[in-house]
């Protein structure tokens, strides 16, 4: 938690002024019992009305100055707490953006969301209360003790005894309740993730009529949360009664010993009343301090959890000063291959086995590289190495002869157009989504990309065209439309390297073919990786990489592989068997009819209008 204090920078002045003004206000409060004692001894004892009135006015004056101090303190502390939290939230958000896939896998989305929302609110609350009360309360407690010493040393000894006992109780209860509170938070996280799950999986859950079961499951997790909340509250509930007993025991002792001292003529009656008032003040402040500590405990727990996220750093390593090198959009000089895998090996964190084992191949500009293989064979992992979503654990991946780790990460990623497996769009407009790769892309560029991705037609039909709103996740578009938009998104800005990670699966063959033809016409002649499970999508590729259990078992053209690669042949046969059975002459691939563009002026036979 304390490491988070670095975010206080910029609020140091306010963070100091807030407790300072609080202390000044507290100082005035400490003087009140002395004034009252004076009223009792000199005013009442001396029957002086004038003195009494003057002293009473002094009390009012104290109150007014106190008000001024405390308004200032409240302002400074609110300003600090809110500003500090906004900064932490900003930095945490930025930090999460810097984590690599490995850390994101480990931390999990719902945890990160809790850190950014609930935990931040707790921290803000904690900082605010700390600034206002954390100094003030101990100050009044010890101040009261010191004032007691100025009145009577022997009576003050009771303060010396009471304060440690109180502290033991207060801090003891606090220490016991911290782990309990942590459990409560854990339970709350579970309830949160269950709630999310019920929203994301609503269709499946309803299809399986799981409504009642989910209600029961939630009731169970919610019940566990409630039980832990009550348990931790039970301990905290001891705080007030115990401190009340201790402080009153102190008062009783104080008055009895005071009586002995008055009897001997050492103290006045007014002084005893003043001591009594100081002791009472301690109680009020300690109750505040106790409540404060509970709140701070919560906040510190939240702060530690946030700090833990900060301490999780990207497992990607960078050169101190990355050799700032441009990645050429067109082919590299001297015939160096655009992409080269040199004995690249990848083992995921905590995994027992290599995900990718000793891959070697090259890819040139203008080439289409097909990647094919079964589920879990490592196709996606292979392409994930190029933009450094994961780093190799052995060997290297090179672009234009340089290790990808030598480029600045943004340069690297900005030079690659990626179409991820999952077609996700972001809230905004079509334009804002398409400008992901190039924030200043012109409408013309966007339409070109849409045309290439076979998305022009339906976007043209939308009433707002490029300004058509996209809701969170792109939920207002169908799966096929989202898919094409994500392809268009990758094409904007003419990247030198394209990666289609099994993303054409929802495209029909005609679109697929048109897309491939379109890619060939791109002026920058990109090197293009297409991951697919369909041989038909890849048979025209310049080179096909065949993956099996993380090993590159074959590379070459379709014809070559049919001759040399058993795995490839097996895949091919499985997909073309049906048509062979039909004995209709030459083997026919199995087209995917999902995205027929039936309506409209677009003529498929002409392929694409570039």
């Amino acid at each position, binding site marked *: 938690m304390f490491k988070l204090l670095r975010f206080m920078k910029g609020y140091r002045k306010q963070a100091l002024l807030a407790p300072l003004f609080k202390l000044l206000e507290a100082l005035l409060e400490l003087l009140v019992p002395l004034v009252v004692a004076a009223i009792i001894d000199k005013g009442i004892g001396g029957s002086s009305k004038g003195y009494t009135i003057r002293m009473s006015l002094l009390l*009012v004056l104290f109150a007014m100055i106190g008000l001024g101090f405390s308004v200032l303190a409240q302002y400074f502390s609110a300003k600090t707490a809110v500003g500090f939290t906004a900064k932490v939230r*900003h930095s945490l958000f930025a930090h999460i953006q810097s984590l690599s896939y490995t850390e994101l896998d480990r931390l999990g989305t719902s945890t990160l969301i809790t850190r950014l929302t609930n935990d931040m609110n707790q921290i803000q609350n904690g900082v605010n209360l700390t600034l206002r009360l954390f100094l003030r309360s101990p100050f009044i407690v010890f101040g009261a003790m010191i004032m007691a010493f100025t009145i009577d040393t022997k009576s003050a000894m009771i303060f010396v005894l009471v304060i440690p006992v109180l502290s033991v109780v207060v801090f003891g209860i606090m220490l016991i309740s911290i782990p309990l509170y942590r459990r409560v938070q854990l339970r709350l996280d579970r309830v949160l993730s269950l709630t999310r799950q019920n929203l994301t999986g609503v269709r499946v859950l309803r299809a399986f009529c799981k409504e009642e079961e989910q209600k029961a499951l939630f009731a169970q997790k919610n019940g566990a949360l409630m039980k832990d909340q009550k348990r931790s509250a039970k301990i905290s509930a001891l705080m007030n009664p115990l401190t009340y007993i201790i402080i*009153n025991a102190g008062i*009783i002792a104080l008055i009895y010993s*005071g009586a002995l001292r008055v009897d001997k003529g050492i103290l006045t009656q*007014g002084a005893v009343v003043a001591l009594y008032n100081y002791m*009472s003040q301690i109680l009020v402040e300690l109750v505040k301090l106790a409540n404060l500590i509970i709140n701070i405990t919560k906040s510190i727990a939240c702060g530690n959890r946030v700090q833990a996220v900060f301490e999780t750093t990207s497992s990607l390593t960078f050169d101190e000063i990355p050799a700032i090198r441009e990645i050429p959009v067109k082919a590299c000089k001297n015939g160096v291959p655009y992409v080269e895998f040199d004995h690249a090996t990848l083992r995921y964190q905590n995994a027992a086995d290599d995900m990718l084992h000793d891959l070697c191949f090259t890819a040139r500009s203008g080439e289409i590289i097909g990647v094919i293989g079964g589920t*879990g064979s490592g196709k996606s992992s292979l392409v994930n190495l190029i933009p450094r979503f994961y780093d190799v654990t052995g060997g290297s991946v090179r672009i234009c002869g340089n290790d990808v780790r030598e480029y600045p990460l943004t340069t690297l990623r900005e030079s690659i157009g990626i179409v991820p497996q999952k077609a996700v769009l972001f809230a905004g407009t079509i334009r804002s989504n398409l400008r992901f790769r190039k924030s200043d892309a012109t409408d013309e560029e966007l339409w070109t990309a849409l045309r290439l991705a076979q998305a022009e037609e339906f976007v043209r039909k939308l009433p707002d065209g490029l300004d058509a709103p996209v809701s969170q996740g792109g939920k207002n578009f*169908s799966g096929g439309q989202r898919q094409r938009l994500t392809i268009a998104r990758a094409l904007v800005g003419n990247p030198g390297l394209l990666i289609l990670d099994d993303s054409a699966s929802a495209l029909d063959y005609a679109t697929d073919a048109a897309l491939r033809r379109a890619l060939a016409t791109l002026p920058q002649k990109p090197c293009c990786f297409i991951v697919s499970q369909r041989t038909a999508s890849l048979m025209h590729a310049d080179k096909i990489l065949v993956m099996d259990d993380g090993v590159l078992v074959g590379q070459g053209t379709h014809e070559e592989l049919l001759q040399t690669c058993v795995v490839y042949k097996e895949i091919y046969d499985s997909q073309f068997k049906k048509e062979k059975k039909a004995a209709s002459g030459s083997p026919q691939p199995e087209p995917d009819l999902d995205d027929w563009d039936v309506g409209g002026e677009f003529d498929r036979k002409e392929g694409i209008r570039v």
Partner: protein
Amino acid sequence: MKKGTWKRVLTYLGKYRIFLFLSLVFAAASVACTLYVPILIGRGIDQIIAAGEVNFDALKNYLLSAAIVVGVGALVQWIMTTINNKITYEVVGDIRRDAMNHIQELPLSYLDSHAYGDIVSRIIADVDQFADGLLMGFTNLFTGVITILGTLAFMVYLNAGITLVVVLLTPLSLFVAKFIASHTYSFFKKQSATRGEQTAVIEEIIGNQRIIQAFSQEDESLEQFDEINERLEACSLQATFYSSLTNPCTRFVNSTVYAAVALTGAFAAMTGAITVGGLSCFLSYAGQYAKPFNEISGVITELQNALACAARMFEFLDSEPQPEEPADAYTLQDVKGNVSINDVCFSYTPERKLIEHLNLQVNAGQRIAIVGPTGCGKTTLINLLMRFYDTVSGSILVEGQEIRRVTRASLRQNYGMVLQETWLMEGTIRQNLIMGKPNATREEMIAAAKAAHAHSFITRLPNGYDTMLTENGDELSQGQKQLLCIARVMLRKPPMLILDEATSSIDTRTELKVQDAFARLMEGRTSFVVAHRLSTICDADRILVMKDGNIIEQGTHTELLEADGFYAHLYESQFAATM
């Protein structure tokens, strides 16, 4: 709105009225003890007049009584707090449970059109804030009110004149508190709304962090986040600062009252109307009398905040649930798979028409392939068949029963659904597989997994069928997830199937086997397949060619080719393009 919110909160509290009553009783007892102690102490002080004038016997008596009262007071207070905790956490638990139950009752149209993050924030963060407010409310509001009344009684008993001073001045404290509270409510509401907005953005960006990074959108998303973050900072500052003014202002009023009591009390003591012990008791009362006002005002702001949160929560709870099933809803039985769609019209928004006058007769066991361009209404048809959405007009009959007149559960139980987007719940693989058939034996489950070609990869996982999946099974590949989804349906063997592009991301080597398994599964079962694959389409008993929400052609593959219409044209061009 605010009044309505209060009423709702009170309804939730109603269940705990016995505890509420006990809490009140213990609060009264605890306050009585707290108030009696200063009187006993004050009397004790009166026994200490000056050197040689101390009555030790009486003093000892008073102090002993004080000790006993303190002990009892502490005990009673502890019991009260425990009860309050119980009430608060259980009420909050009840609200959360209701919210969750409500999610299950909400129509898909609501869930599809609201950001998940916002709903989650209402159920988790808002309810949490509400709990804090409610707890503070209980602990401080009850005792506060009783303390005020009790103090008043004790003060009148001590000296009516000084009491009058206190009574006349303290309402100022209330007034100040109320003034501040009424002004901060709107700030809190704004803060709450901005937080919701921010949570929605966080959900979106952090939830799709991988894509953000793939496109180096870190800076842009940070910018978007910062814009809201700054707005939140501004309105948070307002809410925090203005609400925190309550304490200093009321404390000022209290200090003034304290000074007035000191003055009038001293005058009264000079005339002998009150003893010095009485005055010290009065001063301690003046503090105690004012303190509850202080606390109550703090509680009121906290409650305002809590109410703003509760209001957002109730707003969610009040969203229209899906229409209740009619009392005489029929339970579909012995479904063979006859489905008839009669003149169905449907659209998500009235402005954009989608499906119009759709008619379709499906006989038991038929396989229906649905093909057509994106946005032609394929997935909408699924939404209607499953009753995720209700038709605007027209009717859908299953076995001659209008589906709006049968129970949703019995309708959905007769369908097996594999959606394009795989979704797995948090839990073990086994739990996921037996979702549709909780009482399945291990053998049945393994048989289904084998049929879906999921068995071999499952057994290779660290804990086999007992491997825990996190939310949405991120540790599995897309294809593996798909296999699990298929196995899930395999186990259930419903009479009707809905398959939405189900085989699209399964690895091709097993795809054929899976398709065979599907064919076996589909045998004798009515199935609606949003089709990708030519083989699926060719094997279909009927192909529906959809365009703009309507079925423009239907028939078998051969029939359609012979008809030489739309389908035939597209089929040709499709092949031409591939070759």
